[in-house]
């Protein structure tokens, strides 16, 4: 129906979970859609596409970032970590992942990668000092299944493990 070459694409180089990726995408492609639609890294979830739910939380240079509000082109040359890159190279789970499983901190699992990425950062930021502090600093990640009490328990447990 149309000339499909009229969309302008640009080459982008991304470092994700320690691996380099090159892709040609339109400048308007978000990091979230680049991960999910172009790189088959579907662990990062799209819940709202408006920065309201936290399901797309990833780390950029170690800090939590909403991938739906970040253009792929913005994060060239930065270290991106997604849920797929959290476990060790030998498959050993991160303390937060293990605590989520043990505390049953999820049901449907759709918000879970974002919760876990937020929780890792929350502990690293030093904001897991009390249950109330965890609730506040995890409040940007919605969970409609209502796993919140178990998420708090998991973050508390992981924070203690990380500290020890």
């Amino acid at each position, binding site marked *: *129906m*149309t*000339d*499909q070459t*009229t*969309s302008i694409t640009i080459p982008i180089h991304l470092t994700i979970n320690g691996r380099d990726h090159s892709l040609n995408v*339109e400048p*308007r*492609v978000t990091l979230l*859609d680049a991960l999910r*639609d172009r790189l*088959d*890294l*579907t*662990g*990062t*979830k*799209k*819940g*709202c*596409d*408006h920065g*309201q*739910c936290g*399901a797309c939380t990833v780390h950029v240079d170690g800090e939590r970032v909403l991938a739906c509000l970040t253009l792929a082109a913005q994060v060239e040359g930065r270290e991106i970590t*997604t*849920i*797929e890159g959290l*476990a060790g190279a030998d*498959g*050993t*789970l991160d*303390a937060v*992942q*293990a605590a*989520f*499983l*043990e505390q*049953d901190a*999820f*049901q*449907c*699992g*759709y*918000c*879970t*990668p974002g919760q*876990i990425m937020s929780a890792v950062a929350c502990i690293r930021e030093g904001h897991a000092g009390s249950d109330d502090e*965890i*609730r*506040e600093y995890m*409040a940007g990640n*919605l*969970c*409609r*299944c*209502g*796993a*919140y*009490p178990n998420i708090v328990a998991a973050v508390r447990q992981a924070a203690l493990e990380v500290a020890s």
Partner: protein
Amino acid sequence: MTVHNIRHANTRHADSRHGDASDGAVGGRLSRVDGPAKITGAAKYAFEQQLDGLAHAVMVEATIAAGTVRAIDTRAAETAPGVLLVLTPDTIMEIKGASDWLGNPPTQKTYSPLARTVTYSGQHIAAVVAETFEQAVAAAALVEVSYDETPAIVDLSDAKAGDGIPIDVMTKEWGDAEAAFAAAPVRICAAYNTQREYQAAMEPHGLIARWQGEELTIWEPSQWLDGMARTYAEWFGVPFENVRLVSPYIGGGFGSKALALAHSAVAAASAKMLGRPVKLVLTRPQNFTSYGGRAATRQTVTIGAGRDGKIQSIVHRGVNETAVDGMWVEPLASVTSIMYATPNFSSKQNVVRVNTVVPGAKRAPGENPSAFGIECAIDELAYEVGVDPLEIRLRNYAEQDPEAKKAWSTRQLREAFAAGAERFGWSKRSPKPRSMRDGHQLIGWGVAAGTYPVRRAYGEAIVRILADGSVEVESSSIDMGQGTYTILAQTAAETVGVPADDVVVKLGDSRFPRAGVAGGSRLAGVMTGAVYKAATSALDQFVGLAISDPRSPFHALQANTLVVANGRITAPRGDGPDVSIAELLASVGRDRIEATGDTMPANSSAEDRYKNYTTIATSVPHTEGDYSRHSWCAHFIEVRVDEDFGTVRVSRVVSALDSGRLYNPKLAESQWKGGIIMGIGQALLEEGIVDRRHGRIVNNNLADYLVPTNADIPDIEVISVGIPDLHSSVLGGKGVGELAIVGVAPAIANAVFHATGKRVRDLPITLEKLI
């Protein structure tokens, strides 16, 4: 199809609390077997499949609430970069009408998922398909629509809405309720409202559709593979067997993901028209109008009672909104008619048509708003007669089903009140409103009960004992977080006699043995029954072979039976060989034992089976036979209300629940807490707000439609008081998923009254209603 081979999953770290073999049995606290995939990002949800040649579709929705589409100008969209197809009511292929979920034949020969006549804002009227998602989004914004707008009825309180249509089948009457009310020494009467609420599952609705000749594969989050496959088959005039629905994980449903919807038809049609697979995911705002949330409801509850608080009469009138061109009845008397003993009862219900998408099922449809009415009303009665709110519930305890006049199968509600009150410290409650405080915070303690019927149906499963000694289970049922993968692994493990780690459960593919809808809290009871039956049959075959095959090491024993436990087979007295399942299968030259089990009546025809799995017409009534079957719960909730600002915070929840036997308490407790949290949202936050000028939901996103966040939720304690109920299911469980939300909102409203002395009968309880 999804495999969780937990033997190979890396759970080293996570297994730190394991090692208790009983975890894997039915009733054990086994961690989710699909957990490792979900916490590592490996779990691929339905529309995350990566397919070659995938095109992307975006819907265009109506911006008026009533009227007709005069013209759709697609020229700019059609020439936009990457656009493959622009669909309007005039250009979409013909789609046939499909039967409804009860199996009633279609009323129209054809079905148009794109509307010419608009009956609600947000209705789909066009779609754009392009090479990339970004191109489709950009082109969809170029579609120009002009309308001839007509006045809309925006909601129940619209002056044009009227009294609605009486739904006679909802009428329930016994005794002479009006006369008994008029004669009662104590009379209370009040109106209770609940608003439009949305399921707001974190995973949006969407799908990938692919045609290969006349075969259609749909990857779509689904609470009901076989029912949705039937709809697609009828829409496109292909045999049911030609449609494969795949839904390995579902990112939350809460009632919303059981039906194929208009956008589903558009995706499948565009895939057929293009000859390419098409992916269509609704935007978050579209998720508020592409399917219905809970209907707004209005109830009047009048109670006539003695001065001792004993109920003599209940008169109940209810109204729920429905759509201009679709019918939804939210049964508003479902709790009213059974919770308390009353010699006289009357309930009637109307529905009112407004310009909205057809409302739909949201967690405990009917029971949830019904309980808000009666459980607030009895609290009002308690204050009226000066009786403790817990005591008045015990005083009116229904020893049998007041409506069906049948014995309860099990009703641990008295036990729930006792356990919850004890744990909560109810006896320390100061009865007077505004009598408990902590500085500026008024403290209120409220109680309310909840219930949900045990809905039963039939299910089918295959159980295989494989050459390596592992066990495989297949079923087209689904896991949206309830824990189906896990409890079916536990059921097969216990029944066959292997560790749960040696069971692989495959769900979410309509090619597997069939299952009905995962709704109405019925799936666990149905499917544990089917897996139990199939596993028993596989085990019988296996033991029979071990006894009778001349090559078996047990052949010479001439035993009547053998013991299979922990993956090994032995003689009952331990006086013979001790071999593994794998060794035994090898010795008799078999690579597998396979059995199909279903819980259908023995003489069921193929047609009966098809109807059972693809409609809800064969659901077994909860009052069938001699018993009335329900789950029960009691919520004890503390709120803190800021005296100056009127802000309400829930600070403590203790709930005691009777779901019968729990197949896995760890997972059941999580579902209960989730229901309570959704109930807190309903009580304090959730409300679809209508722009009265345009009949449009204005807070159609997750920042403005407020669902509870982590910071809104305190510690929640849940206590199981259930006992096995074999009238309800094969293994003794009742329902879990919907029960716990029922009664939460009235417990909070009752606590707010206790804190403030203000009775808020209109949800959500927001600060302006308190100051």
